């Protein structure tokens, strides 16, 4: 145990995800001992981030204004909505530069065992966005795990009644992986979604 403020700093750092007591101690001493490091910028960012950052009123992505930069951009294809679980997934898809439509962040996936049902997600807001018939296709890009698949199945049934095309991201073999290590489900999906070459 250290005295006073040093221990307070270690305790606070240790509350962050993925930071254990040893890592917290290492970061604290780096801040204390490295003269070239100025912690005032980190302190400023930390104090302003909670005040400034909010969720986009349209898609639920993180933003500093009422709507996010993607929803405000008129060059984006307004007829496509890609439904993702978290704001982190928006960044992952944006990195591909393949998709030029809009997003909708659900805020998680349906997981009854963790107490998350359809009402805890932003599904109602998605339905509201479909009301004016500009959207022609919904791309469901929830994670390819059991919770994500169940959420996709729930959404597709809900959207059946609406005049909108519902698609799901393809799943199959990862680039750079070995076929012999592919599990039966993934390999089965890869066969299901095979395509013509040339």
């Amino acid at each position, binding site marked *: 145990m250290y005295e006073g403020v040093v221990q307070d700093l270690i305790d606070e750092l240790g509350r962050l995800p*993925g930071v254990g007591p040893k890592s917290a101690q290492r970061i604290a001493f780096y801040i204390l001992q490295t003269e070239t490091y100025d912690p005032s910028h980190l302190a400023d960012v930390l104090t302003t981030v909670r005040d400034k950052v909010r969720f986009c009123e349209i898609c639920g992505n993180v933003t500093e204004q009422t709507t996010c930069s993607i929803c405000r951009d008129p060059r984006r294809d307004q007829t496509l909505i890609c439904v993702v679980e978290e704001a982190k997934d928006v960044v992952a898809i944006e990195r591909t530069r393949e998709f030029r439509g809009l997003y909708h962040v659900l805020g998680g996936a349906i*997981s009854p065992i963790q*107490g998350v049902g359809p009402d805890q997600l932003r599904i109602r807001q998605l339905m509201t966005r479909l009301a004016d018939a500009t959207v022609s296709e919904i791309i469901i890009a929830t994670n390819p795990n059991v919770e994500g698949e169940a959420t996709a*199945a729930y959404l597709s*049934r809900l959207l059946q009644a609406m005049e909108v095309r519902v698609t799901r991201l393809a799943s199959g073999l990862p680039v750079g992986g070995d076929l012999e290590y592919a599990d039966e489900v*993934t390999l089965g999906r890869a066969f299901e979604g095979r395509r013509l070459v040339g």
Partner: protein
Amino acid sequence: MPTYRDEAVVLRTHKLGEADRIVTLLTRGHGKVRAVAKGVRRTASKFGARLEPFMVADVQLYEGRSLDIVTQAESLGSYGADIAADYASYTSANAMVETADRLTEAEGSSQQYLLLIGALRSLSRGEHEASLTLDSYLLRALSLAGWAPSFDTCSRCGTAGEHTAIVVQLGGVVCSDCAPPGAPRVGREVIDLLSALLRGDWTVADATDASTRSKASGVVAAYTQWHLERGLRSLPYVARTGESA
């Protein structure tokens, strides 16, 4: 023995660190095991979908100090994909694995393991309505844990007869003499369905109507919550007849 091998069904998973997961497994021979699956969240993970909830796998585990480590996994039954494709099956399967997790808190048994994989297999194939499979599983899992309900004889005095008063706290149906004042009564067809679900008589169970099933589900839910002491988180989300999505 640093490593061991067993058949296991995945009950639930928790994220750990950057790309790992803690998987809670109900094994055939080692009871309930909590183990770390390293790198399982990476797209190129060697485990792939084998350690997703509701999957049955042949696993090799390395004994750790607090948590074991999964070193290899071969799929024995991949029920997850079929279950997730149907919302009613998915919510029912969630309630099943949560119950199995609770009932095996102290120790698991191979019978609980076999009962659970049988129920998950039936759900994935859509053999019966999902909520019926769930109710049958709950009654049988509680019976294996030592809380067998009685639907044929009075659970207090043992008198045989066509009783209709049901008191979950007393363990099932009770005769008119033993029934406390104001004890809830249900139709005989509900008792017959409950009895059929406990025996696994699917001819009787599949022939029942939606109203009878709904009343029977209410009794099963109350019975389960009473014996598990704390309510099941997933039970309120179970999509019953006609309300799936």
